[in-house]
């Protein structure tokens, strides 16, 4: 199993641009999550999904959107990038409580 994979690894965006961060898991987990991690801090939940077709907001959802059309994929969309969205983004999945994380996408908005 590859586990949780994320693409791209690194991206530079200009203010106002949009992009989609991809996340795929091959463990057949129902639950998937998107977190952001700012320097020196723990992770904060952006959005999560309890199954295909179901998504819900986390602690810091503003400026982001998600969709969950399949069990495997959970893309995160930034519509109008802002400097405050400069961060490292982690996708995770779980069968029960333990969440398994991908390698992260480092995003820089200039």
């Amino acid at each position, binding site marked *: 199993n590859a586990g949780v994979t994320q693409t791209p690894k690194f991206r530079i965006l200009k203010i106002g641009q949009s992009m989609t961060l991809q996340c795929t898991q091959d463990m057949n987990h129902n639950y998937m999550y998107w977190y952001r991690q700012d320097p020196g801090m723990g*992770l904060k939940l952006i959005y999560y999904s309890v199954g295909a077709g179901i998504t819900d907001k986390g602690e810091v959802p503003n400026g982001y959107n998600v969709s969950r059309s399949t069990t495997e994929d959970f893309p995160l969309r930034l519509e109008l990038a802002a400097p405050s969205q400069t961060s490292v983004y982690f996708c995770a999945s779980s069968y029960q409580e333990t*969440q398994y994380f991908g390698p992260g996408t480092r995003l820089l908005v200039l």
Partner: protein
Amino acid sequence: GESVGLHLPTLSVQEGDNSIINCAYSNSASDYFIWYKQESGKGPQFIIDIRSNMDKRQGQRVTVLLNKTVKHLSLQIAATQPGDSAVYFCAETSGAGTALIFGKGTTLSVSS
């Protein structure tokens, strides 16, 4: 109130020593706790977990202790190795499909 097991942002140990990393959790309703290890440039990696109906759980070279009275977790690493150098986070949750609430990380540095 008295602080038990003060959280330290950094911990430096010698190879072969035992390490103890402390964490205070916030939500009395949390019933599941996880320790993650995060190496530079990587995602958090699961180390060990414990449910709220337990006080102690042991893994390979690691032990987690839970004190619900003072909402405190600790991670003990035996015979610490240079490869254990990383940032360690505790996380709490109240169930599957809910957010992990991360504590403040502790950077462990192991010198040989």
